């Protein structure tokens, strides 16, 4: 066994300092008043306005139309993040299932075509995608926000690699046991993929949660605004008596971090359990 030495701790503590430091500063600063922040800059000590700032951020009706609250934005972000992750997982699992378990013409070419789109980021096709959604009258809807982003080369690729590592005999045993393609998928493939699903869910949720450009394009109705957009909006719009509400921006940033952190924590346990138990 390697014995941990003082030096190891120092390195770890430095890591913690650099990771957690900024968060702490943001949290502390958010509990001061905007004017105070404007005067004194960032703060590492708690101020006295923690509860009222956060209550205000979550419930105050703001925006041009004065209808959008922090809670609403959080809901929107959650819908986007979860819809995005769940949709991507379902779609890429089905695509990978078809690629691995069904012999159809051009399967390999299809796979490589999907694979090469990995190289194209969303931004490359963002305008055509917008055009399509606009024509379909799907702007300012959740479907319009989520569906165009669902096709996932990354997800398909990972699931394909994973399915390929499942022994063929399992499929054969299932065939003899009378399980058709659908039953085999639900009864064997999905449970075996739990670990994979958890891992991809984490990645995709955070990716969806942090989307900025696409929601900005797709939604003009403020009731569809996400938290990430909201932060930007505060600094532009919620200007009270000349000073931007820095405290609220910080509070919103902190709030924006909570769900992804929770998702990671919840799924991590599942994820690590799957890894160590090595189900195959």
């Amino acid at each position, binding site marked *: 066994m390697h014995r941990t030495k003082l030096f190891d701790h120092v390195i770890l503590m430095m890591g913690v300092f650099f990771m957690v430091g900024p968060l702490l500063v943001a949290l502390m600063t958010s509990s001061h008043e905007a004017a105070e922040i404007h005067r004194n800059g960032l703060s590492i000590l708690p101020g006295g306005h923690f509860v009222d700032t956060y209550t205000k951020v979550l419930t105050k009706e703001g925006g041009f139309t004065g209808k959008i609250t922090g809670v609403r934005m959080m809901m929107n972000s959650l819908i986007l993040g979860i819809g995005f992750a769940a949709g991507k997982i379902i779609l890429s699992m089905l695509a990978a299932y078809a690629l691995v378990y069904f012999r159809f013409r051009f399967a390999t070419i299809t796979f490589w075509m999907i694979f090469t789109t990995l190289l194209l980021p969303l931004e490359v096709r963002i305008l055509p995608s917008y055009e399509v959604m606009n024509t379909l009258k799907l702007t300012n809807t959740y479907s319009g926000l989520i569906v165009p982003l669902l096709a996932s080369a990354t997800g398909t690729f990972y699931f394909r690699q994973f399915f390929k590592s499942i022994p063929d*005999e399992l499929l054969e045993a299932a065939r003899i*046991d009378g399980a058709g393609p659908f039953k085999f998928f639900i009864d064997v493939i999905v449970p*075996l993929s739990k670990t994979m699903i958890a891992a991809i869910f984490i990645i995709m949720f955070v990716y969806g949660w942090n989307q900025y450009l696409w929601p900005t394009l797709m939604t003009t109705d403020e009731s569809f605004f996400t938290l990430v957009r909201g932060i930007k909006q505060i600094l532009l719009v919620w200007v009270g008596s000349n000073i931007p509400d820095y405290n609220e921006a910080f509070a919103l940033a902190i709030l924006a971090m909570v769900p992804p952190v929770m998702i990671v924590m919840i799924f991590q346990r599942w994820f690590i359990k799957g890894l160590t138990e090595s189900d195959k």
Partner: protein
Amino acid sequence: MAAINITNVSKIYAGGVEAVKSVSIDIEDGEFIVLVGPSGCGKSTLLRMVAGLEAISKGTVEIGDRVINDVEPAERDIAMVFQNYALYPHMTVYNNLAYGLKNRGTPKAEIDARVAEAARMLEIEQYLTRKPRALSGGQRQRVAMGRAIVRKPAAFLFDEPLSNLDAKLRVSMRGEIKQLQKRLGTTSLYVTHDQLEAMTLADRLVVLNGGQIEQIGRPLDVYHTPASTFVASFIGSPAMNLLRGTREGNQLHFGSQVLDVGRAAAFPGPITVGIRAEDLRIANTGEQALTLKVEYIEELGAQRLVHGTVDGKKLTASLSPEIGIGETLSLSIAPERLHFFDADTGKRLAQPSAASDGKRVEMLAIAEA
């Protein structure tokens, strides 16, 4: 329970490999047939065609009078045991056994009863709630057997089910499979590359070579009258000695060495002679004998394998450990115990009326010893 008739079955893989070449086997109801042969000879391919996991290129397979060429595996009324067990890793042992029954819509009470019965038979009752990963190799093998048994199929198909077990467990599981099959009376087709496993399990052996049947027969018949040099060298350990010689009159010539075979030559000229290691014995003085130049000795406890050369050709003799061994040995063999094969095709050449004579020589040999 049903008979299985395999008629002129061939398998041609994409790419043109003919893995199985026009194989016909008639398996009786309740019979235990073992397909044996070296790796790559097409055993698994044949079994998988019966199972429905591989399309049949030519010929027909019938299970109980029903041609099943185009029938789904699940509808063939067979159960298969795989080499790597192929248990569903995320299901408990109970669910592994029950899965096939559930898919068939068997009532819950009946599933419970059948799983309980199979578990009792295989002594895996205490593991029913465990996942396969919490079981040892032998226990997993039992579960895999259980999965086959609960279905009460017309036939069991085994593809090298014991290859992943250690030697000792393999021997005991072998015995259990044999007993279980006898008890259930289910027609079985079993694939192995291990000739010993094949000999001990089979009612009848099917020796395959390069996708073709070399011989079908009861284990002892195959052992005592191999149909070809391939079977002779594959079945039995140590492998049968095969010496090239020439037959002239009633004598066999191996280079300068001569062996009297007692009877007039039915097939003169070059010939391949097969000699089982245990049929060789130390020659009495004055008796005509082969001179073995000893190279090394393998001590197996109950017997002693003496490896050496006769006229430059390798020969192995199995002798009692009591016999002292010098640099050369004079070995003789009852002429009836010689096997003759065509020098070119390797096919067995019929030995006229050897059987009756063989018995008498055997008795004499016992009397001598």
